[in-house]
């Protein structure tokens, strides 16, 4: 039962593109009209061809090459720095007690290692840092979520929260000492004040960057209220949130060192910051440099071992990571 017999028919036949504005369809026009809808096998074959042509090809580099391209450049940079340091020592730019050689610093580390105390110093600091960081994550996440979702709260404390990020957390140390004395509480207070704003801000900017499309799609699927937060909002905000966590860890670690340097009491246990302070009191430059090195290594190590793989995994699984 054909549907139309308008006077325009003959004039426009298969050249009907004048009106229809459908460019590609006319090219395929032909006798097919007589037998509409070819066998569905044809369609499946066409689809398979389209899918094969259009789908992204995922190839991963062999791990050996990855190691070669990723690990070598920083290694060479470290060797160059050590070389320059050794040269400076060799030509005695400063007296040796002010500028010890890399070997002296290594020996100082070895000494502590042989005493069996080195790992416990590192562990004291790392466990404090981790505990403080985890507490910051709990508080910062809740705070960030409230700031991101509740307009009044955002207007009230949003600017303060981002402003707090530029306040060096060492500035909190005197206040914390007055409140809590020379205690663990002081150290944790400083760590929290340093890390919570970063984490909360990371989450807020993560939420702000969510494409409105995902929120609409979530609502049409019935993800509202808590289900919406859990299934759409949080996963969609994850890249920004992870960036916030990474920065939060850096701030935790920094704040912890600042606190440990100043909050020095015999019953508190010796962390890396206290080790550094002891080196200064003894005027032992290689001890001081060894402590600085350890602080740096722990900071970089945690970033490389925990945060970098996490971030890579998230970005890669969303197709946001370009190889290059």
């Amino acid at each position, binding site marked *: 039962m054909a549907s139309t017999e308008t006077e325009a*028919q003959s004039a*426009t036949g298969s050249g009907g593109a004048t009106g229809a504005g*459908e460019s590609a369809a006319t090219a395929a026009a032909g006798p097919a009209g007589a037998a509409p*809808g070819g066998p569905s096998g044809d369609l499946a074959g066409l689809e398979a061809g389209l899918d094969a042509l259009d789908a992204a090809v995922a190839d991963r580099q062999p791990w050996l090459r990855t190691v070669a391209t990723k690990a070598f450049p920083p290694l060479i940079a470290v060797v160059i720095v050590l070389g320059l340091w050794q040269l400076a020592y060799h030509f005695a730019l400063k007296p040796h007690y002010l500028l010890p050689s890399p070997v002296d610093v290594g020996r100082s580390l070895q000494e502590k290692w042989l005493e069996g105390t080195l790992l416990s110093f590192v562990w004291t600091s790392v466990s404090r840092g981790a505990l403080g960081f985890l507490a910051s994550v709990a508080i910062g996440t809740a705070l960030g979520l409230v700031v991101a979702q509740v307009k009044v709260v955002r207007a009230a404390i949003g600017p303060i929260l981002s402003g707090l990020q530029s306040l060096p957390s060492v500035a909190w140390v005197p206040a914390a000492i007055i409140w809590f004395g020379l205690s663990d509480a002081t150290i944790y207070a400083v760590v929290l004040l340093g890390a919570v704003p970063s984490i909360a801000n990371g989450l807020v900017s993560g939420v702000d960057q969510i494409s409105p499309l995902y929120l609409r799609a979530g609502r049409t699927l019935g993800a509202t209220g808590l289900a919406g937060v859990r299934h759409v909002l949080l996963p969609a905000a994850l890249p920004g949130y992870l960036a916030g966590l990474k920065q939060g860890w850096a701030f935790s670690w920094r704040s912890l060192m600042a606190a440990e340097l100043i909050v020095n009491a015999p019953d508190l246990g010796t962390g890396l910051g206290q080790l550094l302070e002891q080196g200064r009191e003894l005027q032992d430059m290689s001890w001081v440099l060894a402590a600085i090195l350890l602080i740096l290594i722990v900071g970089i190590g945690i970033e490389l071992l925990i945060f970098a793989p996490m971030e890579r995994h998230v970005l890669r699984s969303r*197709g946001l990571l370009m190889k290059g």
Partner: protein
Amino acid sequence: MTTTTLTEQPAAADTGTAAPYAVRIDHVSKAFGRPGAQQHVLDDISIDVAPGEFVCLLGASGCGKSTLLNLVAGLDAPSAGGIETPGGRPALMFQEHALFPWLTAGRNIELALRLRGLPRAERRTEAERLLELVRLSGAYGKRVHELSGGMRQRVAMARALAQDSRLLLMDEPFAALDAITRDVLHDELTRIWRETGLSVLFVTHNVREAVRLAERVVLLSSRPGRIAHEWRVDIPQPRRIEDAAVADLSVEITEQLRGEIRRHGQH
């Protein structure tokens, strides 16, 4: 010779179901902005979509067709009039696939199943079944970015079907695809519509697409959007977009659409 234009509502196909329509849009108007300086986007729109019917809403840019779809989806509320969807919350497909990139294709579908309340044990099987329905059986574990544009829209269709709504709203879902892929997806949509017996309300600005797919084409005028004309499309399915009958009706509708657009240049 049969007539193709028809302005009265179609007789509700009485299949014995409780409601004679899948959606009733009843004298709906929508205006944005504050009182006094309001912009009227939709003006007194009434459309019934019968159970199992495929209706295309056609109009130029800015005619408010997407706004109307948002109202039906419950994402926004009309300024006047009412919308009834007896089958509950309708499923909605967008021009962008809107799949969640943090989930695999299969998990995207399972999330819709979970939010609909399907027990965990049945989700995997149901997701596989839906993927098979859109001919993507192998795509369960694929990430969204690993799929082509056409495959993404097919997964999006499977996710929309996972909501198990009797009404499927589609907002120019194929507009961003190349012509061949779009043609393939037209066939798929027609097949799925006939297999499932869903009611479909499909928004597009593409006249041929509307005639290719719909049983009824509703033309909206722009600013404010009003129903300008309505056609019943009696060309038997499966149709091809290059069929002479499709082309002829497209020409007729395009003429009307041009007329509507021209009117706006005259003020």
